[in-house]
């Protein structure tokens, strides 16, 4: 029976010691410890969050990079295409111009030739006329009594000499 009868002294001392412990530990142990644990948990959480955020940002950045790369590729392709077109166009234009120039040259040459030819023919005609006159002179000197038939013959002959 003694075993299950609480003594007044022990009740007093237990209460005293327990409350002393409670008060001292509450101020000097539990408060700083629980606060420190809480702070650490918060800092771990924020660190994890920021790591997650950094990962997201990285991903975003990567996809952006990819996009930029893609764009650059497209741009390069477009530029190349344009350059090729420009090149082709320039070549074609040059070809055309050259052809035109050549045609012009040929034309002018031809014109020149024709002019020269006409001049030459005219000269020949003149020479022939002079020659004819000389011939006629000679003939006239030799045969001053020539008939009108002979003159007709001469002019006919001269017409025949005409080229073309």
């Amino acid at each position, binding site marked *: 029976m*003694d*075993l*299950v*009868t*609480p*003594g*007044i*002294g*022990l*009740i*007093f*001392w*237990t*209460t005293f*010691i*327990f409350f*002393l*412990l*409670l008060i*001292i*530990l*509450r101020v*000097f*142990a*539990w*408060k*700083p*410890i*629980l*606060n*420190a*644990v809480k*702070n*650490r948990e918060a*800092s771990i959480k924020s660190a994890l969050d920021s790591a997650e955020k950094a990962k997201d940002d990285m991903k975003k950045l990567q996809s952006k990079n990819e996009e930029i790369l893609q764009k650059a590729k497209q741009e390069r392709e477009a530029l190349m295409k344009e350059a090729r077109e420009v090149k082709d166009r320039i070549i074609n234009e040059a070809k055309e111009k050259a052809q035109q120039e050549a045609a012009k040259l040929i034309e002018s040459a031809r014109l020149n030739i024709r002019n020269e030819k006409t001049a030459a023919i005219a000269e020949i005609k003149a020479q022939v006329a002079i020659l004819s006159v000389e011939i006629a002179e000679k003939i006239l000197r030799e045969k001053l009594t020539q008939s009108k038939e002979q003159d007709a013959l001469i002019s006919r002959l001269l017409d025949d000499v005409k080229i073309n």
Partner: protein
Amino acid sequence: MNCLQVLSKRIFFVLLASITFWFPASASDHPVAEEKTAHEEFIPGEFIIDHIKDSHDWHILTKKNGEHVSVYLPVILYSQNSGLNFFMSGKLAHGHSYLGFAYSEETGKIVEMNEAGETIGTPLDFSITKTVAGMMLAAVVILFLFLRMGNSYNKTKNIVPKGFNGFLEPMIVFIRDEIAIPNIGHHKYERFMPYLLTAFFFILVNNIMGLIPFFPFGANVTGNIAVTMVLALITFVITQVSGTKDHWKHVFATPGVPVWLAPIMIPVELIGLFSKPFALMIRLFANITAGHIVVLSLVSLIFIFKALWVSSVSIPMVLFIDVLEILVAFLQAYVFTLLSALFIGLAAKEHHHA
């Protein structure tokens, strides 16, 4: 922080000093040996109960010639006749009486007598008994551990627990995350953390120190009904004080129960209020006391049979029970804290009845 360190050191030394203060009255000053004990029959029941029960001196060992080596502890008595009395328990050893006080032959308690040797009353006994001394030592250990820990946690921000703190911190976090928060709830648990933590470590340290069989350990603190009663009463008071309107409504007008049942329901609910701390008190007391009794009984076997070979059986058994008791030490501290949190949580929670 510095003043904290100084304070913790001061507390430590004051308590250390108060421990050494008990020593002067060691038995060597009182070489009056009881010759008869050497040849006395070994009575295991007496031996065990002697250990389980509280006493005014701390028995360390009995020499071969029957001489007891004990540490005498301060006796503090308040009597209506002579007021407050303070002396060492050595003065009462071996049936001596001092200032009219002596151990009663029937109950073993200190009684006051007149000159004629007649009992005139039982004084209020506020002595630093073995249990109180053990409890004080446990308090010193707890203060040493946690003031050091709190100090180091206060000093640096985002501290990483080192050394023994790394062992203690998970327990503190466990009490918070597995006991307080699930049972009391996120909003209110912080108010009760100091009590739950103090109760847990007070019980745990006392349980473990009670398992160490050498002086100055081995006091049966948490296996004492007065100690567990105080702890259970504190839980009870906290529970009732933090009880919400719902809690009281549940007691005096249980929802969903017809009014004419109230004469039955109210007493039942009131009994329920008191049976909870009562169960707390008995559970801790019985578990720890039972553990001590089993270990001591197994050791007693050697002396009952008066044969050395028995030890080859009983020592492994004692070892097994001791290991089991370490588990029980943690388990009972956990159970007490858990149930305290549960009771507080039940009273403090806002119930929502359909």
